[in-house]
């Protein structure tokens, strides 16, 4: 009996684990100084693990991963986690700083009433480009047409990359055609597929990871990618004293907004620390540090005054009312729709 008790203790150990917060977050998605300050504040240790893709997070949790306190899923992945009952409801009494969040980013369809989630930061999916090359080639930078229309693409053949993501690329093509990014009418999907197949010969690659570098060194001139990454490419090009600059803008047809949210996993060993962490991150100054580091969009109104004015005034990072109206958050697809889209995507990639 004693032995059994001992074994149970071993199994339950994580429950009384040392003062450690396990944060499962995107790569490079929290400022190191913020982590240091939180560790000092809560007298605990933050143990970080990273993913590079919502699907990676979902797959890992579906395979039974436990021991994470905080996860930072994007809207559609959040919806999926909520429906699976994989999250712990938040105790809002422990999160007074919730008042700092811009109401425009609260109460999303993914988690109505924010029972489980608190907005953390966001990115937009847009076009980034080599400013000088675009000017010299006379290409527009305010429309998806430049990515999809052979008329323009002929001038930048082999110098364009698009995201290696079915949802994102499909959303861009749908927006280009004037549909919603969340359109699920199959006929519209097939039209979007045609658009993509027509443009594909001009693209160099489907690339979600190294386009920042390619843009910075000047191998690639035009990319479909995330605003954070464009910001990094821009700063890197500046730091490397390149002869060109990197620009990025939200196409006039509209684009995808990806809002990342802090949530607490059902099996969180330390929900108490997790609440502390969420409240801490909602503090204006703490929240601003990530934006200043990677140029992410920030839903925190109290953070604005700490944010580097150059970033705060960029409409691609802080969209005004007009732009915000044209941004859409991607909703989760059901199994049937995913299968159809996946088959479309395989054809796109193989043909």
């Amino acid at each position: 009996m004693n032995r059994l008790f001992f074994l149970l203790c071993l199994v339950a150990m994580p429950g009384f684990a040392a003062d450690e917060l396990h944060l499962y977050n995107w790569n490079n998605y929290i400022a190191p100084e913020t982590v240091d300050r939180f560790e000092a504040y809560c007298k605990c240790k933050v143990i970080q693990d990273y993913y590079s893709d919502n699907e990676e997070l979902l797959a890992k949790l579906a395979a039974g991963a436990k021991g994470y306190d905080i996860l930072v899923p994007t809207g559609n992945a959040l919806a999926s986690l909520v429906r699976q009952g994989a999250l712990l409801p938040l105790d809002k009494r422990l999160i007074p700083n919730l008042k700092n969040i811009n109401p425009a980013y609260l109460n999303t369809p993914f988690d109505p009433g924010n029972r489980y989630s608190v907005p953390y930061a966001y990115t937009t999916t847009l076009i980034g480009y080599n400013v000088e090359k675009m000017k010299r080639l006379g290409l527009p930078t305010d429309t998806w047409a430049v990515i999809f229309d052979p008329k323009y693409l002929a001038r930048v053949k082999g110098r364009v990359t698009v995201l290696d993501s079915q949802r994102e690329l499909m959303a861009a093509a749908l927006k280009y055609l004037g549909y919603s990014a969340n359109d699920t009418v199959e006929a519209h999907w097939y039209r979007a597929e045609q658009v993509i197949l027509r443009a594909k010969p001009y693209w160099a690659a489907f690339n979600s990871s190294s386009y920042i570098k390619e843009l910075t060194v000047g191998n690639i001139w035009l990319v479909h990618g995330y605003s954070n990454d464009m910001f990094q490419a821009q700063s890197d090009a500046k730091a490397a004293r390149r002869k060109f600059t990197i620009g990025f803008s939200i196409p006039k047809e509209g684009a995808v907004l990806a809002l990342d949210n802090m949530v607490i996993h059902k099996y969180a060993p330390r929900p108490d620390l997790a609440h502390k962490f969420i409240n801490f991150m909602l503090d204006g100054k703490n929240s601003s540090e990530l934006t200043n580091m990677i140029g992410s969009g920030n839903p925190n109104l109290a953070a604005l005054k700490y944010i580097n004015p150059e970033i705060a005034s960029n409409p691609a990072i802080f969209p005004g009312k007009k732009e915000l109206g044209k941004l859409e958050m991607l909703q989760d697809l059901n199994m049937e729709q995913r299968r159809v889209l996946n088959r479309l995507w395989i054809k796109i990639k193989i043909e």
Partner: protein
Amino acid sequence: MAKNFGKWLISGPPVLYLVVFFVIPTCIMVLASFRYAGEYGGLAPIFLHDASGAHLNLTLESYREFFSDFIYSWLFIKTLIYALVTTFFCLLTAYPLALLIARSASKYRDLLVLLVILPFWSNFLIRIYAWMILLGPQSAFSAALNGFLGIFGVGPVRLLFTPFAVVLCLIYVQLPFMVLPLYANLEKHDPALLDAAQDLGANGWQRFWRVTFPLSLPGIYAGIALVFIPVLGIFAVPDILGGTRGIMIGNLIKQEFLEARDWPFGSALSIMLTIGAMIIVGGAALVARRRGRGDV
């Protein structure tokens, strides 16, 4: 039985290891390929419970999907071609190298083998990223090649993000796996055999083709197996260097598990790949054995 006890004792742990980490996971995967996908990734339950009791919740849908569209088979064929080309060039370049090492003075041999293994000391992905830099349009290598081609009036070629880049990098990555078994084999050849052949009037080429080459066949088979099979499942290289036309079956399997959240179909693809590899390797082994017997 008692006589064999020692043998069992020695081979037991590796057999157990293979059973636990290969046979059981493979069975799980076979089962997974007949299940339905879970709504949020993962798998649907094997048994469905309703008023009349539990029902098996299995399906052939994943396999039906595979055979319903030639596009999947085409990707298999393409992957196979990449693997064959990679294996062929690995063999072509590794054989002279292995022979050179095996025939060099014994005091240098260890050093030369060490040099072959040296690339393993740096991370696989970093080595692939290095190829990105080498093949990029800004690189000295690309510039030199395009300058050379320019002399003949051939327009600048793009190297990065092409199937060529994928195969080139695959050859680079797999080359040591071909060199090592070949070297291990060639090093053991008895030089007296070559002397005997020479005494009987064989010239250099005959000595190689009639003596060295047939003796090295086991090394060649081992090298081919070590290169060919891993290449079939690789996804990192085409992901990074492949561009819009370079994807392989490994990328599709990865995509099924992650983006598509369709584990059963991903498992079915993996199993088809395993079966395909077994047929090819088994067939090749059979042919080789028959030929070997025929020669005697």
